[in-house]
């Protein structure tokens, strides 16, 4: 029985009806500019302040430590470029990051390299866990910033951010974590985590695209990315996107509420992994237990990921791959390659990212569909020929 299964929640999520409902007042009645002195402005300002406080409560910080941005990528750019700019004045021109960061971080670091900064890209083990020894060696008293993602978007591995924060701070560097994939999937308290900055994005947690936030710990000074008016306490100019900010606040509260439902999601994930690993020549990518509750990433040898995705799409399943052929760059996933997965295996990777919305029936359908598609593609693969002959 064909059905439609959306298993690409790490790419983006559906906006929840409650989130849409929370945004509507700011489109219609509360249309004022929060910076205006009049009644409409004050009305908007009250809603804005309220949203900021609610978000701060979810993350365990003060409302004055939350800054709204247009997206996760902007937050990442601001944190890294802002810290670099500020710390350069103190003679720190070195950045430590990892090989498995999102391109929003990697390409920002590369941009800084072109401006004269040096960047150390720390490696990971075969499970995608950042090497703490290598990181400890990389951080020096010239290091401006350590930027490590909280959880990897492709393979779902969760990084030891608390330990990394301690390493960064011991050398006087700032610590930033890209938590775009972690928020909503891990109970986050920024104070316990010990980071100076943390980025998040609305559309990964059932809020709309086009809204993000950056937590900047009180007392941490970084340069501005966007100059203009005096919004966001003069640190991020531009009229606040109040409807989406209200949506983000609502989505974060719902995510916090649903944290207790995550063991159910993780159970579905584990069933998927267990069943898909029964396919011969398949292998889980990422850490088996220390991974995001909704992330499944499995490599199937002798086939290529894009054709796998196309067949799954035809079968009603939306998924993702680390194959080069699915990206304009024609490069296999930098994450899988950093984990030591050979190119040919990286091409055959499948990422399924499930959520609260996923049902057991959806999982059954994926389990019933993937093996058939894998076999169909293997049957026409010249690489499978030799393996099949040996099996016989």
């Amino acid at each position, binding site marked *: 029985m064909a059905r439609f299964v959306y298993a690409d929640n790490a790419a983006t999520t559906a906006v929840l009806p409650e989130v849409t409902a929370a945004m509507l007042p700011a489109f219609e009645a509360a249309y004022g500019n929060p910076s205006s002195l009049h009644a409409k402005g004050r009305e908007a300002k009250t809603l804005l302040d309220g949203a900021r406080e609610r978000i701060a409560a979810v993350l365990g910080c003060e409302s004055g430590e939350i800054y709204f941005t247009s997206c996760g990528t902007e937050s990442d750019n601001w944190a890294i470029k802002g810290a670099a700019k500020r710390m350069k004045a103190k003679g720190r021109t070195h950045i430590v990051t990892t090989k498995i960061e999102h391109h929003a971080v990697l390409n920002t670091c590369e941009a800084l390299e072109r401006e004269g900064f040096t960047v150390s890209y720390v490696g990971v083990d075969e499970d995608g866990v950042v090497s703490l020894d290598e990181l400890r060696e990389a951080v020096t008293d010239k290091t401006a910033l350590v930027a490590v993602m909280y959880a990897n978007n492709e393979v779902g591995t969760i990084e030891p951010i608390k330990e990394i924060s301690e390493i960064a701070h011991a050398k006087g560097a700032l610590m930033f974590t890209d938590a775009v994939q972690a928020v909503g999937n891990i109970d986050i308290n920024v104070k316990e985590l010990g980071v100076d900055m943390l980025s998040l994005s609305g559309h990964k947690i059932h809020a709309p695209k086009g809204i993000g936030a950056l937590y900047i710990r009180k007392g941490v000074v970084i340069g501005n990315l966007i100059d203009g008016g005096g919004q966001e306490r003069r640190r991020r100019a531009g009229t606040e996107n109040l409807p989406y900010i209200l949506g983000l606040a609502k989505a974060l509260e719902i995510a916090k509420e649903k944290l207790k439902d995550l063991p159910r999601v993780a159970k579905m994930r584990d069933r998927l992994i267990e069943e898909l690993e029964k396919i011969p020549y398949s292998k889980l990518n990422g850490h088996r237990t220390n991974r995001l509750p909704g992330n499944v990433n499995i490599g199937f040898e002798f086939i*290529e990921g894009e*054709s796998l995705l196309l067949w799954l799409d035809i079968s009603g399943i939306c998924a993702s791959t680390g*194959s080069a*052929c699915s990206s304009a760059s024609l490069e296999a996933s930098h994450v899988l390659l950093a984990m030591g997965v050979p190119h040919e295996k990286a*091409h055959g990777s499948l990422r399924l990212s499930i959520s609260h919305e996923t049902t057991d029936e959806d999982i059954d359908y994926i389990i019933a569909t993937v093996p058939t598609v894998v076999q169909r593609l293997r049957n*026409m693969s010249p690489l499978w020929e030799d393996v099949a002959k040996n099996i016989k």
Partner: protein
Amino acid sequence: MQYSEKVMDHFTNPRNVGEIENADGVGMVGNAKCGDIMKMYLKIEGDVIVDCKFKTFGCGAAIATSSMATELIKGKTIEEALKLTNQVVVEALEGLPPVKVHCSVLAEEAVKTAVADYYTKIGKPVDFVIEKSHDDHDGK
């Protein structure tokens, strides 16, 4: 990115998939590192390609271009098959997304490599040039 209906037709229902036992010419091109490998089998009688089959490891475009290439050369003379260019394959597929055009080069290369294999087997000099689509890579 959107594939044409023709590409999706050849992807979901590829023509001439398989192997030919004791093929007269076999050409395997591409490499796993780049994510696409095509293997082309030719059965040749006189100077006519009487049968042609393929196996492909690759993306949707790679599979569809392999399928289309076999359709275009089956029943044709070797001379005609050697005239097959990647543009002809792309046109027959009603276009490919720009990032996928290199896959069609692979199909052209596979046909020519299979013919070259045939020529070598029968002791005929290979008097044509095979444009390599993966020259910029260092192989596996």
